[in-house]
């Protein structure tokens, strides 16, 4: 096909390769909205099962220990702040400070996962221990997968920051990762309330 000889229209066309980066962020936000519905589904499933259960806790289990998860929560929520600081330094083009805080955020995320693993290994109930065990591991596990994804994305962004001229064409990757990380944080706060704070 030859291109149609068409008289050039007024202003220059508002799309093309240069614009694709901003599409990425739009697409990512749309995806995150959609992803939040999965969590919403799990949350509502948890609430319905819990509210309609006759014996919520399996025999021999009397609730979840909340002190260590609380420390974990504080670490994870603070990591959102360190990420904001990292982004702030990137805005000021202090690239090494950005990398430092970015790495700190990753470390805090990793600590959260470690804490989660320690908690899991100390529990007396399993995935198949009724709906209590099932929902607990499903919610924390699915969230944990998101934390892991977030850390991997941050690693990727950190590696990319060493590519010369990486931030000339835009910074959507960092923005998207940071959005994702805040999303994971917010989900955790809801999760923490549902799993640890909500007492029968």
């Amino acid at each position, binding site marked *: 096909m030859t291109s149609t000889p068409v008289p050039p229209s007024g202003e220059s*066309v508002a799309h093309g390769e240069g614009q694709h980066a901003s599409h990425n962020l739009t697409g990512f936000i*749309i995806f995150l909205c*959609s992803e939040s519905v999965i969590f919403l589904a799990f949350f509502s499933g948890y609430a319905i*099962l819990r509210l309609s259960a006759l014996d919520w806790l399996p025999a021999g289990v009397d609730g979840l220990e909340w002190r260590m998860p609380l420390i974990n929560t504080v670490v994870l929520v603070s990591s959102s702040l360190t990420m904001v600081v990292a982004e702030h330094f990137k805005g000021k083009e202090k690239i090494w400070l950005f990398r430092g805080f970015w790495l700190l955020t990753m470390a805090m995320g990793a600590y959260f996962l470690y804490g989660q693993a320690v908690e899991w290994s100390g529990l007396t109930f399993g995935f198949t221990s009724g709906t209590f065990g099932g929902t607990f591991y499903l919610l924390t596990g699915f969230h944990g997968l998101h934390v892991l994804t977030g850390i991997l994305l941050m690693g990727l962004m950190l590696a990319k920051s060493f590519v010369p001229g990486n931030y000339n064409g835009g910074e959507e990757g960092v923005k998207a990762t940071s959005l994702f990380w805040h999303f994971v944080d917010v989900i955790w706060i809801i999760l923490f309330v549902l799993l640890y704070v909500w007492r029968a």
Partner: protein
Amino acid sequence: MTSTALSPEPPATWRRYFGFSTDAKVIGIQYIVVAFFFFLVGGLLAMIIRGELITPASDLVDRTVYNGLYTMHGTIMLFLFIFPVLNGLNNLLIPTMIGAPDMAFPRLNTAAFWLVPVFGILLIASFFVPSGPATSGWWSYPPVSLQNPLGQLINGEFLWVLAVALSGVSSIMGAVNFVTTILRMRAPGMGFFRMPVFCWTALAAQSLQLIGLPALTGGAVMLLLDLSVGTSFYRPEGGGDPVLYQHFFWFYSHPAVYVIILPVFGIFSELFPVYSRKPLFGYVYVCLASFIIVGLGLIVWVHHMFPSGVTQWMRNLFMVTTMLIAVPTGVKVFAWLGTLWRGKIRLTTPMLFCLGGLFNFVFAGITGVMLATVPIDIHVSNTYFVVGHFHYVIYGAAVMGIFAAIYHWFPKFTGRMPYEGLGKLHFLLTFVGANLNFLPMHPLGLMGMPRRVSSYDPEFAFWNVLASLGAFLLGVSIIPFLLNMISSWARGPRAPHNPWSAIGLEWLLPSPPAEDNFGEHVPTVISRPYGYGSGEPLVEHQAEIERALTLQEANR
């Protein structure tokens, strides 16, 4: 004509349909062709189902086979035919209608498409595992779907859940892509209220996918864990709740019907103006009605569960929300009638399919209001009345609308004209076949014949024989369609850029369009769509563009 038709085309034009293309127009046709392959598979299963039901006894296939067949028929038709074929139309139409060179994420688009054959093969493979395919219906309600008589890890239900989950991933990838493309890549001057209604309905439908599908995915993950790992989210003996799954399932699967029917409303809204030579009546209302349907569509799902044991106030609430959907839908139907009124009607093949589709849709809408009514629903839910109702929606309205779209836009994307005679024969067989097949299901349901039965009491025989004859007629109706598509694509007359004198950006492209559509020369939109009879140009420099296209056609 004959000399140009025989001129060899560059080989790349057909080879690219068999590879990993990132061109939305190629992917669109790939979607449609793959979807019709599965349409034939699903249709074959329907023929066996109707063969079994032509007699009251369970005598053609074993009961387990029957259950597998109807489960796979529903699953294939929904996840492997109708969603892919609509995504195919989205791929063809959205970029060309809004003047974008391609989708926002071409590689994501490729990946979303190639998942379709993957989960298609996964689903078909379940026929060949020792347990046989899933047999618990496309709803896959636990606990019956969790029963795994052979106890093997790889069983039909396992493959079914996996296929549905992959289909969800593919649909989400598609939805992110379509929504981003519509939001960000419209031609200069094309505000939302200058956008063709098909794009409005696609935006509405894909938004529903984004909101609804994750709920099904979440529910399916829990089903898979119950089935394979031994959790008890839905197992009553472990404290689980089987009805919880129904909420997850219908929270998506009712809106899924709007995902299917909204783009078909879009097709009607595009085609009625073209073949009535009149603007779409009440364009703005039609656009907004789609989003009212989205909003209401998300809060009606419990009407599928009236007999499952929901409280009275919930029944009444969901009945009212369901009935309210009749209002925006009615606005659309009346808008189409207003478009037809005092128009200059041309009964071409696409127009016949639209009119037939509208006829069936109005009928389905009326039985839909009946089904929303709690006391009537209690009697007819899970009977053939429901089967008749949704086949009127899905086959009678949606599939006929899709055929209309295929005949209408075939010249644009293949560069060839489809044959009118075969098209009209196809319409006649489809319209008669669909009504003969699905109308008798309503009396059957009212009499109390449950759906999904492999045998039935003899008093239901008469209507079942009629339905089966209609089904076989529908089976025959696909032959002229396939003949038409293959022969006209191979050696049909060359299509001009605008064979139907339609108004729209896609008709200002050559047939078939170049890979990047308008490339650097996207025209600026200066008026509303459907300006039939007003003489107003749609875009700046329209006359020059059309002259150039005509010149180019004369020279080829």
